[in-house]
């Protein structure tokens, strides 16, 4: 073998603006480490200190990430990582998700007697994993970021140690997560084998220049990577783990997972999707059929997500299936993105509004849930509107938004998504999506029926914690604001996607 190529030393040094673009990541890592330390400091009550550090680091990260959106693209670590508008947008999304989940879980953990500070540390680690996923261009580092995020998530799911359901959920999530990561990895290996590079941008470049590289191994590898991601976002044939895990996990964690982890998976999925050349001319060999497969997967995801949610009485499981249905709508966006003028912007917007809605709903659920996540069934909610008018109003807004009824954000993002899908010529898919969402309207409204129209024999009155109330109120405001004036959000997503 000829002499090993020596790595060029200049790559390791960081220029000043590279350094600033790493700001958000440093804040989060610093925050998590500091939190770990303070967790064991004897005389300060761990609970307060860890939470404050976590929130402080998140806010710092958000501030520094905000600069990145406008800043132009800077490559880091020899192209393995990039800090552009796209990754900044997602970073802000993840940081907001983490902050709001922490706000919701402070009082929740107290109520459930689970006040172990590691909760917040793991949360920060997982957020860091997500941020990495949104900004790496290297397949291996995507795998590593995925594992950082997932491992902390496995533990968070199993956080209620002595509860059988929580353990079972964690175990299921772990086994199937590990298997899926292995599948993803094997796909990476095959891609590496056939194109010789890990950087997804290089893979694209090499494949476009030398089409003969697209051997069957390349296609198998590409598909295995896609399947790995489809598992993570819980598209239908690969969704079976999700409802059990969501039901078993503590409620704020379920909220964190439905929004954060799904958004991160989609962020990475979009980058890989582009790199596989889907939609460009080279996809002729695989493209025609890839489109049909994705079309079918999107349809069955939407259909089964909505239909099974119809039969659920447990709210967490119902929202799990509704999240599967939303994955279906996002897949419609993915299919339509290359051919429509708006590109991937609608997906970003949908993910943002979806996060706000679901986080709001889950914060309310974590406020409502009793010891060990009991009384989260439909009939526990009956007559809620009489006892907690404002809480049920907030929940109604989120549900209307999920159902896609105007003046809410859900409607604006769904409209934007279907609008671009029609431009891509997927008319019949949109018609089917619209009909599936009608099924969705039924079970979202059924919850409102229980809250407003049933007699008052649900759970008795209880105090709504201030922190949770604040975060819920903020999310309601955001849902209505995006719903009524969506143009700002659409402009941001369009600008961000333009430089992808």
């Amino acid at each position, binding site marked *: 073998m000829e002499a090993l190529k020596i790595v060029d030393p200049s790559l390791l040094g960081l220029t000043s603006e590279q350094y600033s673009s790493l700001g958000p990541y440093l804040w989060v890592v610093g925050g998590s480490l500091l939190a770990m330390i303070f967790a064991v400091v004897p005389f300060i009550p761990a609970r307060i200190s860890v939470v404050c550090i976590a929130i402080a680091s998140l806010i710092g990260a958000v501030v520094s990430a905000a600069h990145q959106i406008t800043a132009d693209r800077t490559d880091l670590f020899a192209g393995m990582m990039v800090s552009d508008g796209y990754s900044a947008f997602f970073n802000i999304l993840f940081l907001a998700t983490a902050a709001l989940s922490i706000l919701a879980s402070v009082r929740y953990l107290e109520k459930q007697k689970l006040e172990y500070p590691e909760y917040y540390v793991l949360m920060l680690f997982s957020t860091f994993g997500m941020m990495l996923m949104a900004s790496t261009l290297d397949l291996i580092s995507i795998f590593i970021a995925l594992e950082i995020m997932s491992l902390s998530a496995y533990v968070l799911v199993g956080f209620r140690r002595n509860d059988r359901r929580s353990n079972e959920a964690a175990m299921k999530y772990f086994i199937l997560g590990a298997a899926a990561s292995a599948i993803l990895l094997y796909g990476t290996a095959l891609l590496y084998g056939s194109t010789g590079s890990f950087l997804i941008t290089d893979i694209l470049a090499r494949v476009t220049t030398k089409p003969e590289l697209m051997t069957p191994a390349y296609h198998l590898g590409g598909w295995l990577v896609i399947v790995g991601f489809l598992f993570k976002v819980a598209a239908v044939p690969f969704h079976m783990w999700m409802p059990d895990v969501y039901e078993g996990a503590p409620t704020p964690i379920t909220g964190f997972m439905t929004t954060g982890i799904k958004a991160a998976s989609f962020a990475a999925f979009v980058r890989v999707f582009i790199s596989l050349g889907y939609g460009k001319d080279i996809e002729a060999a695989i493209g025609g059929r890839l489109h049909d497969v994705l079309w079918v997967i999107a349809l069955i995801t939407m259909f089964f997500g909505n239909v099974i949610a119809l039969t659920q009485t447990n709210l967490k499981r119902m929202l799990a299936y509704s999240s599967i249905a939303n994955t279906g709508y996002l897949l419609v966006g993915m299919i339509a993105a290359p051919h429509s003028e708006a590109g991937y912007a609608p997906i970003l917007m949908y993910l943002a509004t979806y996060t706000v809605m679901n986080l709001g709903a889950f914060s309310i659920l974590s406020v409502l849930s009793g010891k060990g996540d009991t009384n989260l069934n439909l009939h526990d909610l009956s007559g809620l509107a009489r006892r907690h008018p404002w809480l049920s109003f907030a929940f109604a807004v989120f549900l209307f938004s999920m159902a896609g*009824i105007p003046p809410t954000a859900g409607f604006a993002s769904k409209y934007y998504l*279907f609008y671009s899908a029609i431009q891509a010529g997927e008319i019949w898919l949109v018609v089917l999506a619209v009909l599936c969402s*009608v099924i969705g309207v039924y079970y979202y409204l059924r919850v409102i029926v229980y809250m407003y129209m049933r007699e008052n024999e649900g759970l008795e009155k209880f105090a709504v914690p201030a922190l949770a109330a604040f975060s819920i109120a903020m999310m309601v405001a955001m849902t209505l604001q995006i719903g009524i004036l969506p143009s700002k959000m659409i402009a941001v997503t369009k600008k961000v996607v333009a430089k992808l």
Partner: protein
Amino acid sequence: MEWLNTHLLTALTFLPLAWAVAGMAIPGRFSKHWTLAGSLLLFAVSLKLYYGFDPHGAEFQFAESVEWIPGLGVNYLIGMDGISLWLILLTTFLMPIVVLSSYNGVEDREKEYYTLLMALQTGMIGAFVSLDSFLFYVFWEAMLIPMYFLIGIWGGKDRIYATMKFFIFTMVGSLLMLVAIFFLAYQHKMQFGSFSTALVELYKVRLDGSGFLSTQSLLFLAFALAFAIKVPLFPLHTWLPDAHVQAPTAGSVILAGVLLKMGGYGFIRFAFPLFPQAVVLYQPTFLVLGSVAIVYGAWVAMVQPDMKKLVAYSSVSHMGYVIIGLFSLNAIGSTGAVYQMLNHGISTPALFLMVGMLYERRHTKEIKEYGGITKVMPLFAVAFMIATLSSVALPGTNGFIGEFLILLGAWKANPGLTVLAATGVIFGAVYMLWMIQRVMFGPLTNEANKKLKDLSLREIVVLAPLMVAIFWMGVAPNFFFRKMETSITRLVDRTAKAGAVAVALKGER
């Protein structure tokens, strides 16, 4: 005040909502007076609209345009013409009556009740004034939420089934309309280079309207489905009786008075001008459906045991007239259809209010529970008789003008079907008079009916404006036609021109 003159329609649309939100601060007991004051104020403001509207002026007046979602070519574009003028006035005219009628009808959660009523009014007026198809869709859906809660919370026994059915039914139709709106906007981009959902822009979009399943026909069917559900047209009407029977009096008055007109208005504003060839192609189908709706509605109404359901099915029959009026595609038929919408918005609410009054006294809507009411409630009997005459279309009342013009217009379009539709005149008399005979006349057998009190002053004030309107619209219809004539001729010309094209196409194929 200056702002008010230039932005009258925006003020008219959002005043009720603002008023309701302001009303939050008021203790529950006074919210009804507050809402009544608000609705009367709104009626006054809408009269300003009447005087400001110049029938021979521009097609859409009091227009306002503000950019809303530039990325998708959606802007907040509102305006009104002769037809929507009268529908807005009908809404603002009915609202004070509705509020006054539910004074002692509603006890629990009064504040939410009146807030929802005002929010409903915002949705309705918004839908009537919006000239941007996306904005129309937003108001069209936003209108459903208050009605959903009104029926669901203050409704009758199985209100949840009724309100859910009402919501999902309308939702299916309107979602398909939304897809059609997207497609239209996309076609506009293909043909004119920029996205736009504004109505005036979409009029310019050229669509292939040749066959029954051409793009224009499919789009027309998507719009027509949403509006046919709302009208409701014969096969899609089953949500109406349930919604009416379970809704509180105020809810069913507004539902019958204004929400059903949304379907008809939708046809006039969107389906007809956007897809003229498809309208001509599907004219016979809708004429048949309309006539069947008339006879079917009348026949099924005849055998209803429950008064409210009877009146609900009578609405199906009356709105069947509107459909054949619209689809007769000539000035007389269309004017008759618009006028019939206004009549129906006066006579059916009157009937519902009175059934509500009986319900408030006896807590039952079953016809067999009543009999010989005239003896104890003579004034009520007079009012009920007048409302029946209007709904039976007796000359001199508003019903006659509507039905006469519609049947005359439909006769020009398709004489055979008009005979079938005209039989509705007989069956209309049959089910109404039979109901009156079983409720009003006959011996006073039921003990409970003996103690019924006649109309209180409040109830008289509620019914009086409707009674006056019935006769005024019957004797002096020109007062109403003057303002809407040019708008209707524009509507008819556009479809007639396209009709000629379609006929030519059909001819040479």
